[in-house]
């Protein structure tokens, strides 16, 4: 049994509450697609959240509406955060309506991100589906900044249609680079699309890596992550070096509210990035 529980030193009103957001100013709003918006935000006061690691998320708060867990797609040393939000619910539609100068609340960052330390010296296979790209973008920035830390870097990015591609300009610049390869594919396209058509796994046979010394980072819809993980493991990547970023309903983001459980894990605290080794038995069962 535990020893007696001491009062929380932060419980006084002045000291803050772990679930209280900090105010941030919306600096820029960019429309990515019909339902997707990228917000650039900065602290309104001297107080800001700690710098997020690639793959971590924050709780974004729309005043008077509520909070939603949102991945971090970029951050700067001055405290600036970049988030790409798809308008799918009450909170995210309120976030999508924000304009420059508005205030948004932030708390976090939360969870465990991509295991970049473990991936050093290895080939990287990065597979993003749809809104799975934003939480992976900081991994690419890390690769660009410290290119000599990694071996081959292969990126596959898939969207439903060409109109659903986000970060379009940046994609073009990544495609011009010679220190990594990025393949872009869509599920369906008209005659004006000259790129690949097909789900992300159709691009995998084309990807070159040394399976025994490769880390795979996968983010996207759950079905896409499961099939991609299976495919890269079949290509020789170890299940414990195959990582997916899970998504679940979250209220607290600090493993107190119970909502995000997936088998034994609290996705908010133990994830969102989890190894396929740990997830496989649960991904195979419906409605875990």
């Amino acid at each position: 049994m535990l020893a007696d529980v001491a009062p929380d030193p932060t419980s006084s009103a002045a000291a803050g509450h772990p679930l209280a957001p900090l105010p941030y100013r919306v600096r820029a709003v960019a429309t990515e697609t019909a339902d997707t918006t990228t917000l650039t935000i900065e602290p309104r006061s001297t107080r800001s959240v700690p710098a997020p690691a690639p793959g971590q998320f924050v709780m974004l708060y729309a005043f008077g509406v509520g909070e939603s867990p949102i991945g971090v797609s970029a951050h700067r040393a001055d405290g600036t955060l970049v988030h790409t939000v798809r308008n799918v619910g009450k909170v995210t539609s309120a976030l999508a309506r924000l304009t420059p100068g508005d205030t948004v609340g932030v708390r976090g960052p939360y969870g465990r991100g991509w295991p970049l330390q473990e991936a050093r010296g290895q080939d990287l296979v990065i597979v993003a589906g749809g809104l799975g790209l934003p939480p992976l973008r900081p991994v690419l920035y890390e690769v660009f900044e410290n290119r000599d830390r990694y071996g081959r870097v292969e990126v596959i990015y898939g969207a439903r249609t060409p109109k659903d591609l986000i970060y379009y300009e940046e994609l073009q610049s990544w495609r011009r680079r010679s220190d990594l390869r990025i393949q872009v594919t869509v599920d369906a396209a008209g005659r004006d699309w000259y790129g690949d058509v097909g789900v992300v796994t159709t691009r995998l046979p084309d990807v070159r890596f040394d399976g025994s010394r490769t880390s795979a980072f996968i983010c996207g819809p759950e079905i896409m992550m499961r099939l991609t993980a299976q495919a890269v493991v079949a290509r020789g990547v170890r299940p414990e070096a195959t990582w997916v970023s899970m998504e679940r309903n979250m209220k607290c983001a600090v493993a107190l509210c119970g909502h995000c459980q997936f088998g034994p894990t609290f996705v908010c605290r133990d994830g969102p990035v989890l190894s396929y080794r740990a997830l496989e038995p649960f991904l195979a069962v419906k409605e875990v």
Partner: protein
Amino acid sequence: MPLATATPQAGFGGQVVEEVRVGERRTLDRQRFSRLFEALAGAGYSIVGPTVRDGAIVYDQIRSVEDLPIGWTDRQSGGSYRLERRGDAALFGYTVGPSSWKKYLFPARERLWTATRIGDSFTVRPEPVEPTRLAFFGMRACELSALAVTDRVFAGGPVTDPGYRTRRSSILRIAVQCGQAGGTCFCVSMGTGPGVRDGADLVLTEILDAGPHRFLLEPRTEEGAAVLSRIASELVPAAAGEARIAEAIVARTAASMGRTMEATGLRELLRENLEHPRWQLVAARCLSCTNCTMVCPTCFCSAQEEVPDLDVTKVERWRRWDSCFNLAFTELHGASVRKTGLSRYRQWLTHKLGTWHDQFGTSGCVGCGRCITWCPVGIDLTEEIGAIRAGPGPAAAPGGKP
């Protein structure tokens, strides 16, 4: 009655001044039991404890012995709870009711913070939580174990709950060893009772036979001893035989458990049987009413509500109890992950008995039986586990048990 064997020191004005030390057992007569309430009030505690309300024994604020369920007992079985008269005037002659102590530490509804719009920004004021000296009067062994479980949930992780910690830091735990087992009790199987092991400040055993109606008191902490010291003159050092009587009471209770459940290997059993056909049978009965999660002393899930005023200048953030049986609990992008009742019951049971071990290093079940009693259709987790153990499960080893 045994006679006093200690020699009290004569104090000023002829008053008896005596200190009760941790571990020293004392006997208190039923006639003088009200003095314990006075001692608690004198030590600055508000008392919450069992009392009869709306046809059940619930925990609420109590002020005197008369508020206790004197002469009442409860008869419990799957989906059924009835109060009945006992043939005696026992104070603690019942088991556990629908309420649990968690409501005092993790309130069913709680304001977490208030945000105020100021210009084009906002400020957040966390809700202040004042420690209240609450005496939890009449905690059962299983409930002390439940408290240890919620301590791990709310105060054992990297981020702790400020409200829980603050309220928890100032409670006094007065335990009562169970003199009888309820129809849905299985604390023996879960290793949590009926005898009180750890976690109490003061342990009471009610003795109804072998002499006058009396209580054996054992202070386990300085706080518990300090309360008894306030009424030392009313107490009699316990005779050697009293402890044996208390042990016999606990042993008798242990031998009459209403339910049993094999608790070893539950984590593995459930992990390997996520697709067991039994889930379909239990899902056909389960109403997803959330009763089991509301009465459970360890269920901790919560939702948050944003409550703005009319012109959205002031917003309150409230937390309220939630349940994994609610459809909206797993809502993601407009659809629920656990759409079926099957998946929601499976989540509850596999979490409570299985993955809780992974998360908190302990079972989430303490064997109190509340979820069985208060299930409107009488679903019994001990029965469900028995059925899953019996096989056939998809992961049943071929060539294993017949």
